[in-house]
């Protein structure tokens, strides 16, 4: 029996990282984990199809958050994938027998404790398993208030599905306890990484350019598309924003929470101000979701022009916001030194 404390969080990856860290002696908040991992982003990838729809993501790609956090904080984090499902299970059981809570990547659809209406084929969900009782495991899934029990066969299936972002049984754990460190010096570089990615993305589908690109695609909707297809696309965008990952433009608010916590840590009034500004941008994202849903449901007439204007407005706001934030990082600790962010990609 290990003494693992289940915590609920907003996003599966950042809160899995936070829970593991807390267990190993460093109670860092979920928002801090998300921020230090430079988790915020935007990407609109028309060639990556999910159920025939383009991928729209509001954060760094799956797996990035944990990997970046490990690098930023030099965590003793071990990550493993398996070609054989048997080996994956043996390794998990062995770690649990050592009293080690283990983070796992799994497909949401095959996790029986997830409510039926939320079960879709998304392969990059993160959860923590911390106990084994015969043929079942105790799961701490940060999306939910309670812990759950899962049968071995179900967990195996969820860990070894094939397809896009296939987990290949990926597991991660901290190999030893970590002492709490002072992260003040890391805040500036982490913010800089996000701001740069948003403003000067390597690819045109990412960052503020990606938001404009999404707007352009919405402008192209017209009567030629069947109303059902148009409605599906609009609701798909809402789904990617509101249902998958966090609710309510959550990543903007989660990052704002990080900025606020950082402001206290660094005693920076300017940074605290930025947290409030980002909150307002997040509210506008929520408006965007409402607008899309209203048009999809026929409660407002479909207006591609309005949608593009809203997207462009969001892009302009985020451009202004991240420029100011980038300028601000120069004044923060660690802001002056040249950071090896390029290697971090």
């Amino acid at each position, binding site marked *: 029996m290990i003494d693992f404390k289940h915590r609920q969080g*907003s996003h599966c990856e950042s809160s899995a990282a936070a829970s593991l860290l807390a267990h190993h002696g460093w109670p860092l908040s979920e928002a801090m984990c998300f921020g230090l991992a430079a988790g915020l982003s935007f990407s609109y990838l028309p060639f990556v199809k999910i159920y025939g729809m383009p991928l729209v993501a509001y954060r760094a790609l799956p797996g990035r958050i944990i990997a970046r956090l490990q690098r930023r904080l030099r965590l003793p984090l071990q990550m493993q994938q398996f070609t054989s499902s048997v080996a994956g299970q043996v390794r998990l059981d062995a770690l649990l027998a050592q009293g080690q809570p283990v983070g796992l990547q799994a497909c949401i659809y095959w996790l029986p404790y997830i409510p039926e209406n939320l079960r879709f084929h998304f392969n990059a969900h993160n959860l923590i398993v911390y106990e084994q009782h015969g043929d079942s495991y105790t799961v701490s899934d940060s999306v939910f208030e309670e812990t759950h029990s899962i049968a071995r066969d179900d967990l195996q299936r969820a860990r070894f599905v094939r397809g896009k972002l296939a987990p290949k049984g990926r597991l991660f754990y901290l190999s030893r306890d970590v002492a709490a460190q002072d992260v003040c010096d890391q805040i500036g570089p982490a913010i800089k990484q996000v701001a740069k990615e948003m403003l000067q993305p390597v690819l045109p589908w990412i960052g503020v350019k990606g938001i404009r690109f999404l707007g352009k695609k919405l402008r192209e909707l017209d009567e030629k598309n069947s109303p059902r297809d148009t409605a599906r696309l609009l609701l798909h965008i809402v789904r990617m924003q509101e249902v998958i990952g966090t609710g309510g433009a959550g990543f903007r608010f989660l990052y704002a929470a990080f900025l606020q916590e950082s402001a206290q840590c660094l005693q920076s009034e300017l940074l605290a101000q930025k947290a409030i500004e980002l909150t307002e941008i997040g*509210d506008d994202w929520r408006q965007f979701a409402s607008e899309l849903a209203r048009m999809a449901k026929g409660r407002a007439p479909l207006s591609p022009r309005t949608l593009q204007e809203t997207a462009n407005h969001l892009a302009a706001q985020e451009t202004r916001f991240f420029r100011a934030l980038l300028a601000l990082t120069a004044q923060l600790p660690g802001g002056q030194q040249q950071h090896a962010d390029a290697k971090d990609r």
Partner: protein
Amino acid sequence: MRTTELETLDSTLLSGQRRVVYALNEAGQYQAVHSAGWEPEEQAGLDEVAWFHHLQTECKARIQQGLDSPLRYHMYRLRLDESLLAEAVGLWSWRVKRHLQPKGFAKLSPALRARYAQVLGMQAQDLDSYD
């Protein structure tokens, strides 16, 4: 978002679960609070559930007319589409497309049937039933 703006929704999508969201409280501090969902989230989530339900019903009617295969019915039942199914079984999608036709489905070898059944989490002999 402010903590005061949280909606009290009786969410079908979340089935009584509450999410954690971050919002500003009255003191202007960020706080993790419970959310029971909000309307656009609810609409978008349930629309996708309804979409697969619709595909399933439509497919059933087509099978009865001999126009479609039960394999397609099971694909929709498991909320998969052609490309996801192809990736999951590890076959080229043109082959999967063929297997989804009544003719191609009838000609499936026992080995392939077993592979599909495994991926769909069912017994091979149940592949033919669709209700």
